[in-house]
């Protein structure tokens, strides 16, 4: 018996030894796109992570709305621009999602967001007349794409911020796959994308943040998926006791206020998860659930101000509630 146990332990030691020798952990944290980014890979090298960092900086420089050398800046100021692959890819994937969400996601909301001061942190509540005027120029359907050329109507401006982080994490995961990395986790300011399983074969555990505590209200376990959240609690300002969050409803021009504190989308495409997290946050609980029921090709966790966590059926057995203030409700697969 003792002999058997000894040989088992020996095998275990050897196996663990082999694994750590071949799959060394490399991590890199840096700031980009107004947030922090951290990449952890098993296998590969520090040089590979540096290459990825340069790619992220390249995307940032290309689609930044404030950098005067960026393609988006040029487009917003001249209403026409010849664009390179990153801008083209983001626009051609995101615009159909604007349509599919009935404009709950609208890349052309930027002038309204600017008027509220969210781009400069000089917050203010614009007059209803000002909002009405600005909304006349908000229409994703007026963004025209043809042969890598993008055109906007006069007085329009776009911002790809609501989808760029998801696009970037997807690009990183694809790049890591091309380098034969089998296990990695990318965290882009709370937008998480995982590749494969952890080196011990288990799934990645991702926490979903409770706005009140800043800690995980619940956890889920995943592999090979993106988990992207939009929440009103991350950026907001307060005036005369009223809280205004940074996500603007493109239909009203006002910050979203619908009882939802966050929407988390789980899926295999980073950009789509990013886009849907914003769009379904704007739509609110009931319309977000109806959108899920007519699509079914992603999963979702909705957290509400009254401390409920709504989860799609596939994740109802996976989710673990850590914060006792929250109760779980399972979303029906079909409409009632």
């Amino acid at each position, binding site marked *: 018996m003792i002999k058997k146990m000894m040989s088992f332990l020996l095998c275990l030691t050897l196996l663990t030894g082999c694994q750590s020798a071949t799959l060394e952990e490399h991590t890199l*944290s*840096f*700031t980009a796109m107004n947030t922090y980014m951290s990449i952890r890979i098993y296998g590969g090298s520090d040089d590979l992570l540096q290459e990825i960092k340069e790619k992220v900086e390249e995307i940032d420089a290309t689609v930044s709305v404030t950098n005067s050398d960026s393609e988006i800046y040029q487009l917003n100021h001249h209403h026409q621009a010849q664009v390179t692959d990153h801008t083209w890819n983001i626009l051609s994937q995101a615009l159909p999602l604007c349509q599919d969400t009935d404009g709950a996601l609208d890349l052309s909301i930027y002038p309204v967001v600017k008027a509220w001061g969210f781009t400069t942190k000089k917050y203010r509540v614009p007059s209803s007349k000002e909002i009405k005027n600005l909304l006349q120029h908000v229409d994703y359907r007026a963004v025209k794409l043809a042969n890598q050329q993008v055109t906007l109507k006069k007085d329009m401006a776009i911002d790809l911020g609501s989808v760029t982080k998801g696009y970037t994490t997807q690009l990183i995961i694809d790049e890591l796959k091309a380098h034969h990395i089998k296990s990695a986790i990318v965290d882009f*300011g709370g937008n*998480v994308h995982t590749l494969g399983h952890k080196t011990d074969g288990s799934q990645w*555990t*991702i*926490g979903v943040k409770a706005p009140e505590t800043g800690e*995980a209200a619940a*956890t889920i376990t995943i592999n090979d998926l993106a988990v992207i959240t939009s929440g009103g609690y991350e950026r907001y300002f307060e005036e005369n006791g009223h809280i205004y969050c940074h996500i603007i409803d493109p239909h009203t021009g006002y910050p979203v206020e619908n009882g939802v504190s966050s929407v988390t989308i789980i899926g295999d495409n980073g950009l789509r998860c990013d886009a849907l997290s914003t769009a379904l946050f704007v739509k609110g609980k009931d319309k977000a659930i109806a959108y899920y029921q007519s699509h079914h090709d992603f999963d979702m966790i909705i957290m509400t101000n009254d401390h409920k966590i709504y989860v799609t059926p596939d994740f109802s057995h996976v989710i673990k509630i850590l914060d006792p203030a929250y109760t779980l409700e399972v979303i029906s697969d079909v409409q009632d």
Partner: protein
Amino acid sequence: MFKTRTWLIIITAIIMISGILTFTISSSRLKSQNVQIIQDGKVIETIDLSKVTRAYTFTIKCESGYNTISVEPGRICVIDADCRDHICMQQGWLSDQATPIVCMPHGLIIQLSDASQTDALTQ
């Protein structure tokens, strides 16, 4: 019989009290104690906050300015900086694994390096 019961009560009480004490102490301080200070993607300093016995401050300089960091037993924050937005200072003490202290203008990140219950936190 009486003796066994008394002992059981004493042992249970000790376990409960130490449990409550552990919870109280750990919840007032960071659960994880290893902090990394990263500048421009490179770890420039690692601090084990559990080994800090006396408060101290130090300054990190970069091309665009400086950040002064305050370290106390079990906690860390930025107390002074010449960046344009001072968001790093407003963040206060580092409070959880998911939200590092970030100074965008100076490319500075102060984050916990240990994984806790989760591998990442979506927010």
